[in-house]
């Protein structure tokens, strides 16, 4: 279990992390969500002991950070790179040895991981010969090869193709079944909704939402509407009873004002778009995210939606 309590970190003029408390439990995937610059990576770096919090405490299964704990953390940073001139196997073995594996053990395990990621046979190739996606697989191997108890993944899927995203998801879910504690930071709300047990949403350094995915969706479930349609749905956002909207080309998730009903909405739709389906739903994490962040006045809703779509 990773328990971080009341973390604070200030840089010159920014309160980057403001009283963040979170608890990632063994056998769970804990989703750390938030827009760009919200303080996710700073929080993760504090949990990793790379930077020290100004105040607050972090414990690992009840104990403070120590050199022993360090070897039991597997970390995939968001800003990540490898030695371009070095060979693939020796790079993996180097980082594995830094995490306390013996050289022989590291070699055996590396072979298994490379097979799993379809990179067997490239042990002697140089890192620079690999595509960006394949380099990222090597980084994932480096984060996991020492069988860490605490797995911290910062945007692990960005840059991977769908096939490898699927492999990654299987691996992460496998780690969960093995009872590991997994902290998973991401912008991909659909993925978070699918795999995370519990989530925390950080915005402008503050924790704004938290709990199990079901709890969060139930709490915000009062007034969400799913509309499937044909035509230009961009006007939906500006309807008077709509407080937040996530609009795709033929799909929209709308959050209505408290008390507003489907009947209030229908007349506005009929003459502008061809509606094929409309239903009341529990909101998706993505729309909760947009609504919550927008309500807190972090830029316009459009900015947020587009920045999220660009990332996911």
């Amino acid at each position, binding site marked *: 279990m990773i328990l971080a309590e009341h973390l604070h970190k200030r840089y010159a003029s920014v309160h980057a992390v403001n009283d963040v408390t979170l608890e990632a439990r063994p056998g769970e995937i804990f989703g750390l969500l938030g827009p760009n610059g919200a303080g996710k990576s700073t929080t993760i770096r504090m949990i*990793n002991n*790379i*930077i020290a919090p100004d105040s607050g405490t972090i414990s690992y299964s009840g104990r403070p950070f120590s*050199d022993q704990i*360090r070897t039991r*953390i597997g*970390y995939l*940073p968001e*800003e*990540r*790179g*490898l*030695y*371009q*001139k*070095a060979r693939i196997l020796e790079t993996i073995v*180097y*980082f594995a*040895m*830094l*995490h*306390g594996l013996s050289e022989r053990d590291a070699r055996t395990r590396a072979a298994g991981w490379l097979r799993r990621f379809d990179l067997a046979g490239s042990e002697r190739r140089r890192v620079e010969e690999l595509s960006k996606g394949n380099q990222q697989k090597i*980084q994932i191997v*480096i984060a996991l090869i020492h069988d860490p108890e605490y797995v911290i993944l910062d945007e692990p899927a960005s840059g991977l193709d769908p096939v490898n995203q699927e492999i990654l998801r299987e691996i992460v879910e496998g780690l969960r079944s093995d009872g590991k504690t997994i902290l998973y930071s991401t912008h991909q709300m659909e993925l978070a909704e699918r795999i995370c047990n519990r989530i925390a949403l950080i915005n402008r350094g503050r924790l704004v939402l938290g709990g199990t995915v079901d709890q969060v969706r139930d709490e915000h479930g009062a007034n969400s509407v799913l509309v499937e349609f044909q035509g230009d749905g961009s006007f939906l956002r500006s309807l008077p009873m709509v407080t937040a909207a996530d609009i795709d080309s033929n799909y929209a998730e709308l959050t209505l004002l408290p008390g507003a009903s489907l009947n209030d909405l229908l007349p506005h739709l009929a003459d502008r778009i061809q509606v094929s389906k409309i239903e009341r739903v529990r909101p998706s994490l993505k729309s909760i995210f947009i609504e919550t962040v927008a309500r807190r006045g972090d830029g316009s809703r459009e900015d947020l939606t587009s920045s999220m779509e660009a990332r996911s």
Partner: protein
Amino acid sequence: MNRNRIWSIARWEYFQKVRSKGFIISLVLTPLIVVASSVLPMLLADQGPDATLTVGVIDHASVGFLALRDKIAGTERLPDGEPTYLLANYMANGESPDSAAARADRDVLSEKIEGVVVITDSAGVPRATYRSANPSNFRVISSFEKALSSLVVERRLAEAGIDTALYNRISADVDITPVKLSKRGEETTAGFIGTFFSAYAGCFLLMFLVLTTGQSLVRSLVEEKSNRIMELLVGSCTPQELMWGKLIGLSGLGFTQLVVWVVLGLGALIAFAMPPGMEASLMGIYAALPLMMIYIVLGYIFYAAVFIGVGALVTNEQEAQVATSVLVMLLAVPIFFAMGVVQYPDATYVRVLSYIPLFTPSLMMMRAVTKMPAPWEIASTMVLMVAATSFVVWAAGRIFRTAILLYGKRPGFGEIVRWLRAG
């Protein structure tokens, strides 16, 4: 700090660099450049002309063309026995002095002759000018100076009625052989050139060791920052471990270079007979060797730590270039003093400069081969050097710890001072 991790890092740094093309090239190229730039000019300057040169003579002072020709022919010979100079008399056919001079100048310019010696009379004393396209050839000038002086002396002896043989018996050339005394009572003859060379050797060695490894260190730090490898590294080890690993790996690299260069150097000296003076200078180095080794090691660690501190602050390739070249210039400063140090190793300014840690190793090495400094000076500079090195390693650690995670923005001086103060 975890020793296994430091060892892993040191091994990684060492093998990644030792196998890089840049390192292998510099390993071989550097000694070649050093030899080419320091030894070759010396050897080439010692070399006389390799073919007979024709030199014109215009004699206004009645020194006598034939006498001069015989004198030159008697003393100057090429290694194969051919005469070094062929003299051409431009006054032979009763030409006017002006037209002879003009003809000689034309011949010089059309490269028929190497130059022309014009001898004039200045109140009974002959004076000569040497006109040539290349008047800086001091070999030709000194040959003619010697011959002319000797002719003038002979003429004056004859005028004074003194027998030349008697004069030769009376006059004496005294050569002084330098003998170096040291406390241990050994005597080694070392000429100026030899001492100068050996004083240089230590400084050059240190400079090139620091230069090559320092550069590769800074470059790898820039790579780790710009490729964002740093984030992965500091997730796996502490900054202190990373710094010590790099320092140790780097020292291994320096040691490899040292061994290879010394072996190459000794091999070359054995393969090609030692040039004159070299043997004596080597003796000078042997005597001071233990001391030089200590200063090289201290100086190397000192500078390596400086490079680590500076390298951690650098964020791109251009800054790295500027930073390394400034540091290298600092290293080269003592070499400018070499000439002075070899002549007056006890001069006050030399002793004072010896206490500036940047210069201590180089200056003390030069002094050790020239004239062993007093024990208290050796002891005090070493204590100072150990203290300075410890301080620089400590400061580099402080800077390293914070700076390696800064991307893009270079910190100001005030900020760096704050890091040093922070606990």
